[in-house]
């Protein structure tokens, strides 16, 4: 059953009963195969996202900024998740007073306000405020230019952990040609620094190297870069310096996209032969196309099989294969896959003598993996300078990981 868990009317220009039309419309669209994230009824527009079994719906009757609305809805999910660990029916009901308070603080008259959950937690607490307590004052951070970090943070040991994570997206055609590929990188920080530190991150960025006349050979050309609110964007635009006062704790400092043609790190060749009314035979060859010293961990190769297949038999040269009938997949798992190596998996399925004639979807083979201590692009953290007025020494720790992103290989069958 469906009901409204909680709602907040910010402007009073849309009747609260309008929401009753939302789900029927959504279901109707779904049935017609015309699902859309923006649904209109009369002059009311519903902009929605789904999080597990909850719909977060914004209603408007104006020409609102749709990009802002979706960004805000996702921000809501983020804030609620940080407050309640899980955003679900129960956590909303269990905390409805705080949820109302948050909704009040996050948006006013349709304008998003303070949405940084770390700062919100300083004055909207789950225990309920007592007025006499000093903390129910507005933290100055809320309206500061530095709206993401409070003053007076203290750590015994000052450290920053930097994770450079690169995800490889590949789309390979059935004939084995790479249709599109790119790298989406992300630099995440875990900051444990006292006070108001000024940080500067140095990367082997091609544009920076060109600007400063350094050897371009060992640098990386980033097609596009996106930064956390804390990074001074105009400074970066001027001289490619990444300078910032970091948020406390975990945060994503930046992400980047690299358009170069990447060699698929795990190459898959597959033969899927379907003998009507009798059997399906699958042969998958996986090859590690990366340095011998590196190892890919937790490799998962998912191969689609027909929905009416039965009695699976497998043979693998390494790892183990498993049939997941509810997803119509064979999952071949290889815990550790060294570079340069090649492995083989054969699968055999029976097919019923009476086959269903409905056309079946042709899902691609997908691959999941993780290769530590290595980035495909060759991006490197050259330095992280940390300056705080108290003059403490702080240590940056850097870790590199390459992993699969959207990694799809189309098949012939």
């Amino acid at each position, binding site marked *: 059953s469906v009901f409204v868990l909680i709602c907040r009317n910010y402007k009073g220009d849309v009747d609260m009963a309008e929401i009753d039309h939302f789900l029927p419309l959504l279901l109707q669209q779904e049935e017609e195969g015309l699902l859309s994230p923006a649904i209109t009824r009369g002059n009311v527009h519903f902009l929605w996202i789904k999080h597990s079994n909850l719909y977060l719906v914004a209603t408007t009757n104006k020409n609102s900024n749709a*990009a802002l609305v979706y960004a805000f809805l996702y921000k809501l999910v983020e804030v609620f998740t940080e407050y309640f660990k899980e955003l679900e029916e129960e956590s909303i*009901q269990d905390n409805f007073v705080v949820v109302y308070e948050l909704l009040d603080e996050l948006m006013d008259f349709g304008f998003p306000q303070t949405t940084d959950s770390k700062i919100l937690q300083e004055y909207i607490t789950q225990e309920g405020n007592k007025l006499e307590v000093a903390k129910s004052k507005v933290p100055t951070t809320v309206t500061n230019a530095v709206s993401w970090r409070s003053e007076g943070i203290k750590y015994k040991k000052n450290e920053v952990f930097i994770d450079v994570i690169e995800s490889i997206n590949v789309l390979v055609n059935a004939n084995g040609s790479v249709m599109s590929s790119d790298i989406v990188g992300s630099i995440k920080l875990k900051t444990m620094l006292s006070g108001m530190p000024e940080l500067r991150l140095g990367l082997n960025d091609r544009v920076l190297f060109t600007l400063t006349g350094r050897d371009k050979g060992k640098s990386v050309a980033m097609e596009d870069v996106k930064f956390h609110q804390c990074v001074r*964007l105009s400074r970066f635009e001027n001289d490619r310096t990444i300078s910032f006062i970091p948020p406390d704790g975990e945060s994503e400092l930046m992400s980047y*996209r690299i358009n170069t043609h990447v060699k698929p790190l795990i190459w898959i060749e597959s033969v899927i032969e379907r003998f009507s009314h009798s059997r399906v035979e699958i042969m998958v060859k996986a090859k590690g196309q990366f340095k011998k010293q590196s190892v890919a961990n937790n490799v998962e190769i998912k191969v689609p099989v027909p929905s009416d297949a039965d009695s699976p038999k497998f043979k693998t040269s390494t790892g183990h294969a498993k049939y997941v009938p509810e997803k119509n997949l064979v999952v071949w798992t290889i815990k550790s896959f060294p570079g340069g190596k090649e492995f083989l998996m054969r699968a055999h399925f029976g097919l019923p003598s009476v086959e269903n004639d409905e056309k079946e979807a042709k899902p691609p083979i997908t691959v999941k993996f993780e290769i530590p201590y290595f980035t495909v692009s060759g991006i490197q953290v050259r330095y992280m300078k940390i300056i705080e007025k108290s003059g403490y020494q702080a240590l940056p720790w850097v870790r590199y990981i390459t992993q699969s992103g959207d990694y799809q290989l189309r098949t012939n069958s």
Partner: protein
Amino acid sequence: MTDSKYFTTNKKGEIFELKAELNNEKKEKRKEAVKKVIAAMTVGKDVSSLFPDVVNCMQTDNLELKKLVYLYLMNYAKSQPDMAIMAVNSFVKDCEDPNPLIRALAVRTMGCIRVDKITEYLCEPLRKCLKDEDPYVRKTAAVCVAKLHDINAQMVEDQGFLDSLRDLIADSNPMVVANAVAALSEISESHPNSNLLDLNPQNINKLLTALNECTEWGQIFILDCLSNYNPKDEREAQSICERVTPRLSHANSAVVLSAVKVLMKFLELLPKDSDYYGTLLKKLSPPLVTLLSGEPEVQYVALRNINLIVQKRPEILKQEIKVFFVKYNDPIYVKLEKLDIMIRLASQANIAQVLAELKEYATEVDVDFVRKAVRAIGRCAIKVEQSAERCVSTLLDLIQTKVNYVVQEAIVVIRDIFRKYPNKYESIIATLCENLDSLDEPDARAAMIWIVGEYAERIDNADELLESFLEGFHDESTQVQLTLLTAIVKLFLKKPSETQELVQQVLSLATQDSDNPDLRDRGYIYWRLLSTDPVTAKEVVLSEKPLISEETDLIEPTLLDELICHIGSLASVYHKPPNAFVEGSHGIHQHSADQFAIMKQYFSVLQVWLPATKAKGLEIAGTFSRRQGHMYMDMTFINKALQHMTDFAIQFNKNSFGVIPTTPLPIHTPLMPNQSIDISLPLSTIGPVMKMDPLNNLQVAVKNIIDVFYFSCLIPLNIFFVEDGKMERQVFLVTWKDIPNENELQYQIKECHLNADTVSGKLQNNNIFTIAKRNVEGQDMLYQSLKLTNGIWILAELRIQPGNPNYTGKKKTNATAFSYKLMVHIF
């Protein structure tokens, strides 16, 4: 312990119990009770009868309780306006609380109580909060002005709150600035053309500075506001662009899109041959592509907007076709949008890849997507001539799959390919005919029938094929009936001897047995033509078809420009004009195009209206103009006498449009000998009306200390064209038909070397709006509307035809001639 227990009480007499608890002596009990009330409210129970008891709990030093009470107030005040007054005192008191959280909470809630009666009590507290020492209170008060304006606009203006808001733009705190901008933008939506925000270079500079310091949301408010600004020249435009560009690197996708909006709009102002223009174009592509790695809903908004950007400036993304390749796990709405953009970007350079992709998609299982993929192959064939052959063979492969909807869709697009490339691919007709029986959709049946009729002379059994459709003639859709009628007539004209009976049969079915007027009309026309003048019949029926255009589904240029100015908004997602979102839809709206109008407005040379010789040394030269929805008389007064002049005044005689000055002459200091002064006199049309000859004649009297002087001048009509002169399409159609012929006027404009889009843009700068454009037999037809200040609508049809070089043929062969059909209609 969690709050969920509050949802469980569901006994009879619940309200009664709650009432008792709300009046309990113990604070804790009362707080518990209010929580229960809010819980009941949350699940939709009516607890409005507890209003006085809840308000009684308002005086508390517990912040959580206070918030709950306020929440209750916001929900029920409107249904209990008389009791809402009870809360006023508490608000006033809370607005003076030493704790800024409480002051802000009070001012935030106040504005949400949409009860007209109590708003006046809130003015004083709001005034104080707007000047509060704490920025948290000020930023909340700024938003409160917008809230109050929504309830009682007049009061907000009378109380000077708009000025206070404008002052906050210069606030030292970036969040206050951002909220003030947001509030002013919101308010100005109901005051088109008012320039409430007072966007001048100084204020723009303040906004650009705040842009670097405020939160991501504040950045969006400021960018959206900047996109309404009209830089005075290209230098200013470039310097704003330079300061906006860094926002393209923000992690928040909405910040990126709002920055893209500003840049796309200001690009218009930059010279196309400048280095900066090229650099900026290059910078726009990567962030747009990155948006496609976002959440699916964000991708959707991005794709809908990219669709616009690709139509406006295809060069930005022409190298990026691969990022629009569809992934298996993309949601259907993302798949369909990507497909659309792929076709728009298809070119000879990438067609091989595109086709390979489309063929892959056409074998998927999602019917809508597959159909669109097949259609896309057809569009590629029409768009990229070199690929046509390959497209046709791909379509034939797909027809061989015998998947019913694929075959039908393929036949429809092959018909279009035949129209585009006549007499080129008939060799495949035999294959198409094999599938005749499987066609059960009207579109596909009509397409097949058209093909058979068009190539009847090459299909041996054309008569049999067409006859087979005749059996169930009356069950067919109109589209199939009309096509079948025409196809059989074509067949008859090509093979008259064998098909006489067939044509008789179809003509009688169409004219005698049908009650569809369109079908009957067409039947009779054919019948008459065939029986009276077979030669003409041949000419008419077998005439060359107008070629079909390469691009389909293009958005009208004027709408496209408007949508570009609203990138990121719902209008850009739905590809509907922004004014379609205005409540009631016919309301006044600020046509974004008049922002361009100001920038591109040309100032005509000043004319000497009053020579010095006729006015004892006073010379007046002037012109008229329309800026941001207001009319002005721009004049230069020169003192050519030997003595100084003072006591200036101006007066107009009654005139056709009731034009009068709205202010006295703004000359406040004496005009010394040989000195001149430029003034801009605002005008309105609320004065007395008298018909003049010519209609636009204006008689003026100017007085100074020396004497009174008279002159007359002509007002250019275009200053009377108002900004909301864009008529709804439907209204236009109806009105056009209703206007009697005697109100029609035709004339020609010669020697105008512009194409339809440029013309349309130029006219729009003068508030002449293009409602629709269509291409009829190679001529562009623009349908336009304009509205005069006195409410008279003028509708026009503008026909632009490729010129005859002998006609104008002096310099260029691409000269075009216009014929302008003006229709005047007074409502």
